[in-house]
């Protein structure tokens, strides 16, 4: 499948045009936000930066201080589902162009993606070195009081490969895989271990 180049912040048209299954290469500014930032924004905290159209990345990177600058050592995605209670509200308030993380999100987020014209981009969990290669620099850091992994890091990335797994048309690859696997699980639970192993 062809790779499509997209740049962050995304235009509303770009975000609306992406479909589940599309492979993209992301360039531009992305912003990390994980548990503490989500809780803070959901409980009335103000975002220190404009998030409209930007890619909000569920990530707690390893960043070290070198002289006067920051260097990203490893920066893979964290489990997105933990932000499910907050994400729909955050999408409606701040209008990001995409949410990026791993494992996908639930029905509330999917509904907000559809209403606001936003997408979910999936990265491979644990592929921290692979992903770090696409990170060019740290542009800014905010909310460092939440700790190094939980701060809001503004990163400049170039050609970061991602997969669209939830789109603004109501599609979710995660929901599809889950419902298929549930059917198989139900069948497996009916087949006893002993009978099978001794047959």
């Amino acid at each position, binding site marked *: 499948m062809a790779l499509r180049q997209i740049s962050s912040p995304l235009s509303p048209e770009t975000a609306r045009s992406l479909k589940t299954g599309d492979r993209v290469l992301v360039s531009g500014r992305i912003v990390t936000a994980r548990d503490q930032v989500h809780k803070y924004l959901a409980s009335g905290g103000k975002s220190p930066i404009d998030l409209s159209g930007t890619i909000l990345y569920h990530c707690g*990177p390893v960043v070290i201080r070198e002289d006067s600058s920051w260097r990203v050592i490893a920066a893979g995605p*964290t489990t997105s589902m*933990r932000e499910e209670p907050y994400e729909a509200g955050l999408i409606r308030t701040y209008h990001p162009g995409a949410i990026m993380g791993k494992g996908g999100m639930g029905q509330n987020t999917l509904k907000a993606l559809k209403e606001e014209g936003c997408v979910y981009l999936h990265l491979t*969990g644990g*592929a*921290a070195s692979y992903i770090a290669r696409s990170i060019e620099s740290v542009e800014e850091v905010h909310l460092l009081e939440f700790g190094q992994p939980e701060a809001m890091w503004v990163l400049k990335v170039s050609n970061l490969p991602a997969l669209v797994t939830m789109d603004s048309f109501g599609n979710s*690859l995660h929901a599809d895989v889950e419902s298929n696997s549930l059917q198989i*699980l139900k069948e497996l639970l009916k087949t006893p*271990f002993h009978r099978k192993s001794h047959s």
Partner: protein
Amino acid sequence: MEKSVLLSSLQNIIEKASTVLPEDIRRALEKSFTEEREASVAKDTLGMIIESAVCSKESTRPICQDTGSILAIIKSRPDESIILIEEAIHEAVKILTRNGILRQNCVDPVTGQNTGDNTGKHVPQIHFVPIDGPTTVSVMLKGGGSENVSTQYSLPDSSLEAGRDLDGVRKCILDAVFKAQGKGCSPGILGVCVGGDRASGYLLAKEMLFRRLDDENPCKILGKLEETVMEQANSLGIGPMGLGGRTTLLGVKIGNAGRHPASFFVTVSYSCWAVRRISAELDSEGRISEWL
């Protein structure tokens, strides 16, 4: 044992755990890569995982940015060296956190403050096992995402129609694999403890993750259960990173512990593909004499 020698050994052990994927895991990932369909998301994902692990090893960077909770198990004669090893672990962890080999992963749950150096109350977690043999240190760095989906069942479980027997155990494990999708990074490895109590179950299940993927369970019936669960879990179609595919698990390791007549716990410790585990033997000076 010599303080400075021990510090250098422990730094070496923990750094290797964070940056080098164990050989058996790497081989299993490569085998799975060949088994996934051409041009599938599953094959692509496994390719990325394998490439990323190579890159981590070559550049001495953490395999995953979540360098996990630190568990160390010291096996040694009960002498003064244990205290020295414990101190060396704390010191090594602080140094490696400053160097970006470990992420700042210890948060005080009362104040919400990150301690910044990976040490805190009961952190890192260190267990001591007295033995009459050479001193060994085993370290596991287990990520938060995979720890969050680790779970414990109490049989019978009516929602799964799981009774107090090995078939009930099988049902619990499959349920845990299903529920971990989208959270713990698959393909996963399961450490399971059948029996024990609430506390020992979790520790023993985690310790099962130290077993090599190609080892043989000394208990035949549990070995058979491992095979069955492995085959059935991989038929669920969850696949790498839960995006669909043939590879949902790389291994299942089941151990057991005596249980109270009233209790029948099944504890599942889920590990993501990025298993960070390592064991080494130390000589009388504290030098690494052998990687185990």
